[in-house]
């Protein structure tokens, strides 16, 4: 168990990532990044079993293409966190920007507060690779658009009104979304359908509720005892009936 601390103050992302890669190659198991301020691409394409703690605010594409590491951010995160991420965990003690978990194919992202527009767009799964996006607060429009697999859970912790953002799960053809409480009928995009979560569904999401509560030091009973809406695709082939041949 070796740990190093890097002071990222004023550092460009390329030398910063070089230091991180070098540390991982040398077998460091925990890296603490202090004074992070807007550096993009932290842990981009990084492979390995390492814990990275970020004190500060990372820039866009945090953990993009990443395979394996755990990143915990004490602050907000920017655009496209977890973009096309392969495996690993990202925990954000704050909010994150647009296109959070875009095209993610594996691993889990926990966001304590809110995310921006286009969250979880085109997440996809294959065999044991299943991405999870867990949101404590709420998401803006186009959540889970074109979703092809994986799991999105949104708790809307501080809001009990029905979810009302446009284009929810439009074009969804795989995976499922759980939202605490109800959703306005008009939010549902083309190709998606909603129903109340069953006890079987609750069994499926319980481990994520517990893990979320643990990361952010919250009591899980409220989340476990709430009712949820499940949004899923009508078909795995949403466009099959749209075309005719020349």
């Amino acid at each position, binding site marked *: 168990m070796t740990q190093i601390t890097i002071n990222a103050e004023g550092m460009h992302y390329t030398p910063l990532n070089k230091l991180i890669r070098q540390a991982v190659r040398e077998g460091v198991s925990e890296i603490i990044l202090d004074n992070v301020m807007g550096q993009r691409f932290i842990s981009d*394409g990084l492979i390995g079993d390492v814990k990275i703690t970020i004190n500060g605010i990372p820039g866009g594409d945090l953990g993009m293409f990443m395979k394996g590491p755990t990143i915990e951010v004490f602050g907000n995160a920017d655009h496209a966190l977890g973009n096309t991420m392969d495996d690993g965990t990202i925990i954000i003690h704050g909010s994150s920007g647009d296109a959070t978990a875009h095209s993610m194919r594996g691993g889990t992202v926990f966001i304590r507060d809110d995310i921006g527009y286009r969250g979880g767009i085109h997440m996809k799964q*294959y065999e044991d690779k299943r991405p999870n996006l867990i949101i404590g607060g709420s998401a803006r429009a186009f959540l889970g658009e074109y979703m092809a697999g994986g799991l999105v859970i949104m708790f809307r912790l501080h809001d009990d009104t029905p979810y009302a953002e446009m284009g929810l799960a439009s074009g969804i053809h795989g995976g499922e979304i759980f939202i605490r409480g109800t959703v306005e009928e008009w939010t549902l995009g083309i190709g998606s359908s909603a129903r109340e979560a069953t006890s079987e569904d609750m069994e499926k999401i319980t481990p994520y509720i517990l893990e979320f509560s643990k990361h952010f030091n919250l009591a899980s009973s409220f989340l476990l005892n709430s009712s949820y809406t499940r949004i899923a695709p009508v078909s795995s082939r949403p466009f099959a009936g749209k075309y005719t041949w020349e």
Partner: protein
Amino acid sequence: MIIGSRPTKFQVAIDNDQCMLCERCIENCSYGVFRRDNEKILINSRNCVACHRCISQCPRDAIIIKERPCDYRSHPVWTAQVKENIFKQAESGKILLGGMGNAAPYPIIFDQLVLDACQITNPSIDPLREPMELRTYIGKKPKKLEFVKNATGDMDLVTEIAPNLKVETPIMIGHMSYGAISLNAQLSLARAVSEVGTFMGTGEGGLHKALHPYQNNMIVQIASGRFGVDVNYLERGAAIEIKIGQGAKPGIGGHLPGEKVCTDVSCTRMIPEGSDAISPAPHHDIYSIEDLKQLVLSLKEATEWNKPVFVKVAAVHNVAAIAAGIARSGADAVVIDGFRGGTGAAPTIFRDHVGIPIETAVAAVDAKLRKQGIRNEVSIIASGGIRQSADVAKVICLGADAVYIGTAALVAMGCRVCGTCYRGLCTWGIATQRPDLVARLNPDEASQNVKNLIDAWTLELAEFMGAAGINSIESLRGNRDRLRGYMLDQSMLDVLDVKTIGA
């Protein structure tokens, strides 16, 4: 049934005097045209797509296929195609899809450009005797080179050179994914490019493990669906290409239908079997030119700045300004796909009506980048409707560094451009995943055909360059003085920056 039957597109006939009832036509036709009835082959012409597989396999030349033997009343506006499209849409209410590239009869600019040759005043060069430099490098070029004298008195280069692809001939093969084409087709192309010393694109379908031995000659694509994309995939490619758009269908995404997502395709793309593979119209992490820069840099960062990153766009009206943005995004090459670019399936309205020809797009992009002093920042790769070596020479004269071919490489493997790729029944084993059909394409033979084609075009390019008194492809690039426009109007000559014949 209000509209009723339409005349058959093709009429198939067998000369029974010639036919020896070998049944090869029955075996080879995956569309169900032929069947045996006692001592005769019976024919259902309506199923024929004119792929000519039966003709190619008939030992007696007994098969004849005629196009539109019974046509509609001829009319210059209400053509058979126009009427039949209306019939189909009146019956279905759906979007029309078609295969292969633009099928509308636009004039071809390449055919109205002529090349130059030396006579007396500057001697031509004989490629037999003189070396001809066909090799080129794709990627960023430094504005200037800086050297310092080291302790031993030698000069050391201090300018950092960005990674470039070394291409032995300016002919590469464009992106056709595993899924759109078969694994044997991809294998054949891969072997050909690795033998020639050029490159091919993977398309947005991942990189099948059978292609790993050829990865040093493969450009891996990352498109809006991100299929098959992980660090391992990025690391394997010789270069990475971000696909923003495609000449056959600018502005829209792609849908690989679930029935083409078999076990192997599913594993390479990393999506469940039988599920539609949907690539959204935009990349949802790119909504601006700044976002493009972020994706370019993220790919470079993920691969530790060792790989050139290309950005491919469809040739659209303001392609020059778009390419200037790409050149400033950190990308190493811009790929421009003209409106004649091929595809497995595209809505015909896009295939035939959206975008501009590659000739004008390349000329406009090259001019814009030179004007802004950033032509060295990116290489230009031209694609979409490159049919012969003369097209390669002409588009290089208009400013391209190299070309991608697609359809031409498929034709080299037997494709007859029947345009029925979307049925998944390709009798040539190219645009299909059906194992018995795929097995028809022998990668040993097909790769040789593709290699022969590239070799032949390369020889022709060398001959042409010699005739023009040029011994390096770099000297041909943007060399518009070696082109003249034949019956092109002044505005077109201005865009191409080419003089008219006789001038």
